[in-house]
């Protein structure tokens, strides 16, 4: 019985690949996500509605659409893809790096929304106070705005990581389903359900996915609680 719970090396590869892509995706969008969220919350600039719309588009489109657009743009024959290959020797199509890009595009709006909400809740007069005390714009941002928005930023990062773990449509469209390269947990589960006798492995991966999701939630809860205690949101 126990042996049937033991994942095969192939299944473990899918798990590690998912983790790797998820972490890279989160790391990739952390800084741009914070900047964009802050920009949308605090700065008025021409074309803001357009930026807002573009950022949020992946959230409302069928994932296969951004996936296909990525393929057209970043594929080997796409304008950006060819340039990347010619200049840097980088190939995104059908590689795990491409999967990172696909899930980053899909996770970005979630990150931005969480940050924007958190920044909007930071009392602007705290920033004013810091300015009159001699802090320049960057220092105000780093010492007041970002620390006070940290719970929201953490939430955004966890949401982005979770979105990346669950990413299917854009990934399969852009980078395919290459075992060991782009076959993440959801793709592996889907693959097993399509072959005879694949129920066992599929179930094992489902359990793994659930454990992974719970671990991520628990870690974020722990982090958020610590930050909130520091900010004094909780009653003593």
């Amino acid at each position, binding site marked *: 019985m126990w042996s049937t719970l033991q994942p095969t090396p192939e299944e473990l590869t899918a798990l590690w690949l998912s983790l790797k892509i998820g972490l890279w995706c989160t790391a990739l969008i952390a800084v741009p996500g914070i900047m964009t969220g802050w920009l949308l919350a605090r700065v008025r600039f021409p074309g803001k509605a357009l930026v807002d719309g573009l950022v949020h588009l992946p959230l409302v489109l069928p994932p296969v659409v951004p996936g296909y657009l990525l393929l057209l743009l970043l594929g080997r024959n796409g304008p950006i893809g060819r340039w990347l290959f010619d200049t840097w020797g980088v190939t995104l199509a059908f590689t795990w790096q491409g999967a990172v890009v696909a899930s980053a595009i899909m996770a970005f709006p979630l990150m931005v929304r969480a940050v924007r909400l958190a920044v909007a809740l930071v009392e602007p*007069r*705290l920033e*004013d106070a810091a300015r*009159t*005390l*001699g*802090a320049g714009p960057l220092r105000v941002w780093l010492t007041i705005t970002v620390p*006070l928005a940290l719970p929201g930023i953490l939430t955004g990062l966890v949401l982005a990581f979770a979105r990346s773990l669950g990413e299917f449509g854009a990934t399969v469209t852009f980078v395919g389903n290459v075992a060991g390269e782009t076959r993440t947990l959801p793709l592996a589960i889907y693959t097993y359900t399509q072959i005879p006798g694949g129920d066992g492995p599929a179930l094992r991966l489902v359990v793994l996915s659930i454990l992974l999701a719970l671990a991520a939630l628990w870690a974020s809860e722990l982090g958020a609680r610590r930050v909130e205690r*520091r*900010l004094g949101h909780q009653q003593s």
Partner: protein
Amino acid sequence: MLALDLELRQGVFTLQGRLTLEQPASGLFGPSGCGKSTLLRAIAGLIRPQRGFIHLDGAPLFDARQGIDVPPHRRQVGLVFQDSQLFPHLSVERNLLYGFKLLPPTKRRFTLAQIVDLLDIGPLLGRRPRHLSGGERQRVALGRTLLASPRLLLLDEPLAALDESRKQQILPFLRRVRDELRLPMLYVSHAINEILSLTPYLAVMEHGRLLGQGLFSEVIRQNHILDLARSLGLENVLQVTVERHEPEIGSTTVRYDHHMLHLPLSALPPGSETWIALRAADVALALQPIGGITIQNQVAGRLMSLRRIADRMIAEVDIGVPILAEVTVKAIHDLGLSEGDEVYCLFKARAWQYLGTG
């Protein structure tokens, strides 16, 4: 030290006027919502006027014509907010040191120990702002601003969020800042007694306009401020000296010039100076002193002018200082009063209001 002349539009609101502060401590007085905070934010550089200039110690902080707009972090203008705005994620000590650490050591005018001692906030240093009471928060906010060594200290209703007893606890600290640190300050409030507790020099503002400035007793008599003064019950304002208390009969005697006035019992020590105010409508006029009446104060004077405003008359009586009395047209007719007549001003003791100590 501070001179400004500006116009600032925000939606339908327009702030307009000029102001020159020469006194080390000045007040800015006006009803809530008249634009006092907006003016302070403009001086601090947090909002930009459309027109005009703001000069501090002869150098421009803002000048629309020359295109000068020094950013707030380079102005060295300290601003203490009504609701303290302490940084919730930092301890009291790190709040205090926030601006201090940004200054080069040669520009630091005070030390942490000095300010902590002045404001008596030593026991609070390790705490978080959320564990402080309202009064403690305001002291820390004041200390934080002082430690940033401002050239000008702006206080935006710093006591408004506190109850009366807390206010009385903070005021002495503000007086210490005024007397010991010799920092120019502009104290903004809609409560005239708070301002008078710190300084008799003030500017008056209403509906976004700076109406006038100077010594309180003179400003408040300026014609274009009379309406505001009337709405606040400040038509008659005297700076008096407390002579003696008679608690057994509930009376305090104060002296103005050579007049002795009987007022309700006050807690001010004898010899101290205070401001008292009386509504014009609470002044009665008589042709001779009247006996057998509870009105305690009957002061002789000369009727200088009579002005009719709608259905009422404003009589100005010189008793050594002009006193305004608001009476009906009928009363003036019945008494047959005309300018130049000798009259007695009758003040009920309880109609006087103590405004604060200077």
